[in-house]
């Protein structure tokens, strides 16, 4: 087991790989307007997207275009102003629970140590946390937190907390994984390792994954499709099919075609004045 380079759980040597556990997600006509007194924020405008079971979708877009809002709507944590979301053929109304979420901030519980912060996922679901203890330990070790399982969240760095939150989203092996800039607080090296491990995990388990990021190359490296969003009000500007072989190792990442995909997205942003030279 690698000790210093943190990495995401593969199958973690635990249960046999479950192929094709992903669920389809149907997003249609989603719009979101926030109203507060006389202030009106149009966060999202007409989002339509159909995510196939087990598909890896990455969303890139400028800050404030409504990515987090969209993720919360998919999870059923926020009721959209209009439009519907369907997960596994069922319309979402109220929080959808058969999923794992990594929020933009770690959202750990101050009063539980790192191990118990992972196990709270099981605890809140009414499962038996003790039965998941070994698995949680293995996963924490995989992300380089083996010696920290008894520490309290405030004793950890921002990146370590975020890794804890990632493990917490995976411990119950959900068929849908929603990740909001999960690697945002990580350094470049850890980030690269986590990306590699997330892909490995996804190849083994096949959970439908919705991955928000600011990193254009990170999106291209991970996704089957990259959704490029416009500045607020957020709309889908482009959908890029990333036709690159998997696993996306170094040779793929450094290939000509990889760079072309990245360029295409960058140009998209330049057209909207998100990137200016």
């Amino acid at each position, binding site marked *: 087991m690698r000790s210093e380079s943190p990495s995401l759980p593969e199958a973690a040597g635990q249960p046999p790989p479950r192929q094709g556990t992903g669920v389809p997600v149907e997003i249609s006509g989603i719009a979101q307007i926030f109203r507060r007194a006389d202030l009106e924020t149009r966060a999202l405008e007409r989002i339509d997207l159909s995510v196939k079971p087990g598909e890896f979708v990455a969303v890139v877009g400028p800050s404030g275009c409504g990515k987090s809002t969209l993720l*919360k709507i998919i*999870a059923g*944590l926020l009721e959209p102003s209009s439009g519907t979301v369907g997960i596994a053929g069922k319309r979402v109304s109220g*929080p*959808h*629970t058969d*999923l794992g*979420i990594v*929020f933009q*901030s770690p*959202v750990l*519980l*101050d*009063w539980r140590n790192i191990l118990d912060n992972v196990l*709270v*996922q099981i*605890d*809140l*679901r*009414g499962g038996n946390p003790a039965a998941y203890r070994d698995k949680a330990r293995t996963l924490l070790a995989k992300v380089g937190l083996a010696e920290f399982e008894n520490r*309290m969240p*405030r004793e950890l760095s921002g990146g370590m907390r975020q890794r804890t939150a990632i493990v917490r989203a995976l411990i119950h092996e959900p068929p849908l994984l929603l990740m909001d800039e999960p690697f945002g607080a990580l350094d470049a090296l850890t980030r690269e390792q986590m990306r590699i491990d997330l892909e490995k995990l996804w190849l083994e388990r096949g959970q439908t994954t919705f991955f928000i990021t600011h990193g254009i190359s990170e999106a291209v490296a991970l996704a089957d499709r990259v959704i490029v969003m416009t500045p607020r009000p957020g709309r889908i500007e482009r959908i890029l099919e990333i036709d690159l072989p998997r696993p996306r190792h170094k040779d793929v990442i450094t290939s000509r075609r990889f760079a072309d995909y990245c360029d295409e997205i960058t140009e998209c942003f330049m057209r909207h004045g998100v990137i200016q030279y």
Partner: protein
Amino acid sequence: MIIAFIVLFLLWEFAVKLFGIKEYLLPPPSKIWSEFLKRQNTVMASAWTTMTEIIGGYLLAVAVSIPLAMAIAYSRFVENSIYPIIVFLQIIPKIAIAPLFIIWFGFGLFPKLLIVFLLCFFPIVVSSVAGFKSVDPDVMDFARSTGASPARMFFKIRLPQALPEIFTGLKIGAALSATAAVVAEFVASDRGLGYLLQQYNGQLETPMVFAIIVLLSLIGLAIYYLVEFVERLVIPWHVSQRPTEMTGL
């Protein structure tokens, strides 16, 4: 800390002797101690009475305020109907109602319990309401995404998150409780440290007045630190993250 007190007492003793200050104005610590020893049976019996009032009234306040705070925090209806009344009642100086309680409830233990209760009650309710309401929306989002039952949500998320603020109220209440009991005894009583204090004061037995003041302070301090000790046991994760801390004696 202890050394500082010893030095203070020595200076006091020395100054009183040096300047020939009259005993009924400012008795030396040695005199306070010797007088206290002479009457310790009476004093300790009164201390027991007063402590019963303090602890009884305080526990009553805790038992009523926390469930009430939950009701206020989780029910819009209760918040809009009952909370304004509580806030309004709080404005009435509770010590001014004390004589009324004598008329209504007589001289016994009950009116004293009631006054301690009233003084402790409000800070505990206000802090607990704030605690129960101060849920981090992101934490709630996470909890909702697990489909946790209301009971689990309460015991595993809401309550632990509220505890630091609840304890703030519990400590304010604890600090007020001894004062409340003494005031209640001032108003009308035939026992307790407050009663004794007035007796000795009337007879110009200043050393005993000092002895009782010291004893009352010690009782107040003990109750406060008892609550803080419980706090340490219940929410160690929060206590240890407070930047500046009052250390125990």
